[in-house]
């Protein structure tokens, strides 16, 4: 129970940090912000890596490997495409 309270505290505070950090975003940056945030949500790759490597059971390892693939597409694709868009905005300056 003690541990759970700590996790929930982190969760609630992080949501507030999110709302505070992302205010007044100019419309030009809505798409890059979304694809960049999208890449960050691929953090689940961390859990997927542990699942794919822990040899607890074969099914778990296979599901873990599938999760690594999906999450890595999310992470790598997300950051790269965001970078591509931001460079497009930049070259006109």
């Amino acid at each position, binding site marked *: 129970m003690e541990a759970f309270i700590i*996790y929930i505290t982190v969760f609630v505070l992080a949501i507030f940090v999110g709302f505070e*950090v992302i205010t007044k975003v100019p419309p030009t940056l809505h798409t890059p912000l979304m694809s960049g945030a999208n890449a960050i*949500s691929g953090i*689940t790759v961390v*859990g997927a890596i*542990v699942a794919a490597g822990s040899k607890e059971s074969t099914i778990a390892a296979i599901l873990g490997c599938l999760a690594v693939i999906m999450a890595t597409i999310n992470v790598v694709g997300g950051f790269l495409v965001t970078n591509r868009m931001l460079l497009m905005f930049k070259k006109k300056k």
Partner: protein
Amino acid sequence: MRISLINIVYLIASVCFILGLKGLASPRTAPRGNMLGAFGMLLAVVATLLDQQIVSFHLIILGLVVGGAVGTYLALTVQMTAMPQMVAAFNGFGGGASALVAATALLAPGGLTNVPPTQLYVATAASGLIGAATFTGSMVAWAKLQGVLHWQPSSDVMQKTINGALFLAALALGAMIVTRPSAFWAFWALVGVASVLGVMLTVPIGGADMPVVIALLNSYSGLAAAATGFVLGNNVLIIAGSLVGASGLILTSIMCKAMNRSLTNVLFGTLGPTAETATADEVYGGKVKSASAEEAAMIFETARLVIIVPGYGMAVAQAQHSVRDLANLLQERGAEVRYAIHPVAGRMPGHMNVLLAEADVPYEQLFALEDINDSFPEADIALVIGANDVVNPSAREDTTSPIYGMPILDVDKAQTAMIIKRSLSPGFAGIPNPLFAAPNALMLYGDGKEMVRELIAALREQ
């Protein structure tokens, strides 16, 4: 590597994510923000690879290589017009991965996590529900945006009942997972029900509402990651997931405000003509004037300020490069050109800005709705290309209109409003647009790209 050391690296990664998102919110710092986020991710992945729980690297390397290659290929080849469906697909993969990780934690509880059992089971149920619904919902959004799926049943009472029943079934299965954890079938059944729910919730939503849906799915993919963080007892997942959940919600609310509709109305409501809505004949009846490219070019001849209003139709016609050529030509002739961007002009938040940036339209010429609306009365010409509902004056004047209250671009206040459009067919809201019949409006019938090219040719001849 020691657990405490790994957790410190995770903390550094979390700080990178927070600063990265903050950076992404401002034009000057955005590229650095994105790099910082990617760096945080790299740190987290490397620290995880040093975890002693990991005894086999084959599947991990396989997954990283395959996922990395696919992700790189998609990111470098995607067309900017296809950006919404790609972000939708990425959201889906993230959500799906979170649900799968929760499943593995349930299958092998001893090895992956040491959180208290109740937390494990509640969080696993939440992750399975949100993750699976995000996955299928995103795939439906992808298919619709890609033009693969056209099926769009209206959101009727029947469907709401089914959705309600599915949601209750998901809750019951969630309770089953918590009370009888040995019953794996309950988890898979929950994933199945959530998958159907994801489809049912996304399928009735039409094209112009897609910006809201994509922002919402973005938020869900973050929440799924946070739920998986509770499953694994991993703070970096909880923090990163909640940050994304919050940013997705902010964008969702910006998009809803831009349409003056509540989230519930976008998701479950219907938008369309009512009995009180004027018919097309009443609105247009003999009042619509049209012009040829040559006639239009003569008006451009003397224009000092031209405001271009692009809509998604411009992107569909792939006219953005021709539009930029027209703008350049007008500028060479001494006119000032500005672009007025409605917040929901594209298929995802900010989409139109990206499309125009790709066509080398200078950032300084793009104006948001609240910054440009006061300029329309001074404009000699407002040129509308492929937009309809967002320039419909009924939203401002007609209290009985289904779109009344939606912020619109005041195109009708310009000296002359020119509308490039194939026909008088209605836009997404399904209602006629009095702008087309206004005394100062001229319809230029034709394909967006063709008509802009004809305008350029006519201007050059003069």
